């Protein structure tokens, strides 16, 4: 039973993705074609993977906090802006920009991400503030903090090394953000396999008191998931700022928190906490990216593009809602029962059997 619902979870975003890709294929049969331009793979698929990288990483972290705390962090975009502003500050303050200084600056920005995560997490875990309310604080104030760290100007990261991180490293045929995202997904997968975090987080999300009675400290688990989300925001901010080549505290990753939450929802994760599927969220994130690009490919008017996206998501959410799902499951069960019955009763007359 568990396996079946889990399969359904990933099945829905996958089928949506398939529909979108089908639309694109009708629009142009060369949708999957990939060419080598300036030593890097170029095509629709690399573009999608490249464009969605930050969203995928944020969606992973969002899935974890959704599971453990039954709520969403709406400050992820802002948190990424703050940690990346620290990254830029440290990097520009260092004597020279080398791979080592970039690594050091990145690690420091991860630390900042963890601190931000711990701040949000402690509000949620220790003071039982609703996650959306707790993270609203940073959501409203955070960009001003990043603005001050930036020294009131949008600092420029115009150097070869960081722009290679944001685009292509010579000799490597795949764009760097795609590689970073893949590595990050692998690390998370290993981490979830090697530790009990999944079990603990789900237990806390489903029933914190029961978890407590079984020796799992809900406060610590919630805090931990928020700190992991903090690392996710730092990595996303790092990728975003190296892509952009400058730190625009006002607009960097603006409104991406909504897309991250949407990715979790499309991935079939219950937003009230409990069981979760990281792969579902990842597929959800790519689905959003493909949806955006499909609307552009269909040349929807810029005036109406938002409405189109909203309608599409609305339909998707209704179809994947527990009500429709339960209805569909019931329908499937009835159909199967009838099928079984007709198979069993085949030799006999079905009409007489009805009576």
């Amino acid at each position, binding site marked *: 039973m568990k396996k079946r619902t889990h399969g359904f979870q990933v099945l829905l975003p996958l089928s949506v993705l398939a529909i979108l890709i089908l639309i694109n294929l009708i629009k142009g049969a060369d949708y999957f074609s990939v060419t080598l331009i300036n030593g890097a793979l170029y095509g629709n698929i690399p573009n999608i993977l490249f464009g969605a990288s930050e969203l995928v990483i944020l969606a992973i972290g969002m899935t974890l906090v959704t599971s453990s705390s039954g709520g969403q962090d709406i400050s992820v975009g802002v948190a990424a802006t703050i940690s990346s502003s620290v990254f830029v500050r440290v990097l520009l303050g260092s004597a020279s920009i080398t791979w080592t200084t970039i690594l050091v600056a990145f690690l420091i920005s991860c630390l900042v991400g963890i601190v931000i995560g711990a701040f949000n997490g402690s509000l949620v875990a220790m003071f039982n503030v609703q996650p959306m309310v707790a993270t609203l604080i940073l959501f409203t104030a955070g960009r001003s903090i990043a603005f001050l760290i930036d020294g009131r100007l949008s600092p420029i990261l115009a150097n070869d090394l960081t722009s290679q991180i944001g*685009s292509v490293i010579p000799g490597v045929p795949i764009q760097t953000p795609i590689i970073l995202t893949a590595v990050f997904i692998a690390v998370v997968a290993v981490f979830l396999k090697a530790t009990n975090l999944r079990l603990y987080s789900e237990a806390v999300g489903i029933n914190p008191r029961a978890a407590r009675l079984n020796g799992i400290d809900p406060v610590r688990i919630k805090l931990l998931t928020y700190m992991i989300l903090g690392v996710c925001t730092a990595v996303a901010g790092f990728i975003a700022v190296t892509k952009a080549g400058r730190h625009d505290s006002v607009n960097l990753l603006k409104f991406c928190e909504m897309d991250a939450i949407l990715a979790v929802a499309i991935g079939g994760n219950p937003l009230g906490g409990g069981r979760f599927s990281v792969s579902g969220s990842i597929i959800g994130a790519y689905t959003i990216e493909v949806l955006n690009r499909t609307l552009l490919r269909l*040349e929807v008017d810029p005036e109406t593009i938002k409405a189109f996206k909203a309608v599409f998501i609305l339909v998707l959410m209704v179809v994947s809602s527990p009500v429709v799902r339960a209805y569909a499951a019931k329908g499937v069960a009835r159909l199967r029962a009838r099928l079984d019955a007709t198979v069993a009763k085949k030799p006999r007359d079905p009409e007489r059997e009805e009576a």
Partner: protein
Amino acid sequence: MSSQSRLTKVFCTALVLLVAFAGSVSAQGSLIRVGIVNLPPEESGYRQANVEDMNAVFSRANGYDMKQTNTGDNSEQIAAAQGYIRDGVKYLLISAANASGWDNVLKAAKTAGVTVFLFDRLIQTDASNYKAALVSDMAAEGTTAVNWLLSQKLPAYNVILIRGQMGSAAELGRSSALLKARDSGKVKIVADGTGGDSWSPEEARKVVEAAIAAGKDFNVIYAQNDGMAQGAVQALDAAGISHGKNGKVKIIGFDFNRFALRNVQAGYWDCDIQCSPRQAAEISGWIKTLESGKKSPTGIVYQKEIYADTATITDELILSKGINADPGKGVITK
């Protein structure tokens, strides 16, 4: 008894000091009292330059006693304006967060004899409710860009239009000139997209990527701000399409960010159009004119704004007219 008299003494001294202080304030009567209601500097690079400019011009050294409130909340702005009117400022400068809701406070200012100037943003109200408004002419900016483009004498103009936040003054103005040129058959718009509400470079990049995927032939990118032009150029670079001074695709951006101007200087982009955040000097000029008893302009006044292309750009221009951080000469922001 003695403690009470000491208290009285202290009180009297304090009173005398207070009167003396008040006297000294009124002795500074030569300073012109100005209240500025503005948006917060963290709103944008534009606003940061705008606030800096206001601070520099309306200083004590220039003969002003200036107070300012920076908030993005319209009701807080209105409260601040009411406060300044109560305090008896002579001039009130407003850049409103929201174009509506200002009628009462502007009427109160009129009754109190406060002269109101609007800057950067207009307010939906009767023109008699303020003295003058100094704003950017977004439509003129668009015309500047289109005129520059047509002066390039390209064999054909196949344009990718990347709009800003739909319906914003900047988007409407900067689009109108290009749409007019399209309607008169001078240019062809092969793709029409938007960077969305955050004028997002990533969205702009996707618009261009979609156009490339659809096999569109284009030779102009008309991006309505510098960030979106940057995103569009990233898409060209990844696809191996040449651009800039000697390239196939002409790149046009708006806003005069210093990184954009350096890109133009390096021939990486082609043209950038100014959207000046520096209104303080002109308004200060109006105030000084009024103070000397002469007449100053009324109604809506548009700022003079310029463009810079690879031929006309200079270091001096980048330093004095640009906004945000300067990457330095010869540095390209990809």
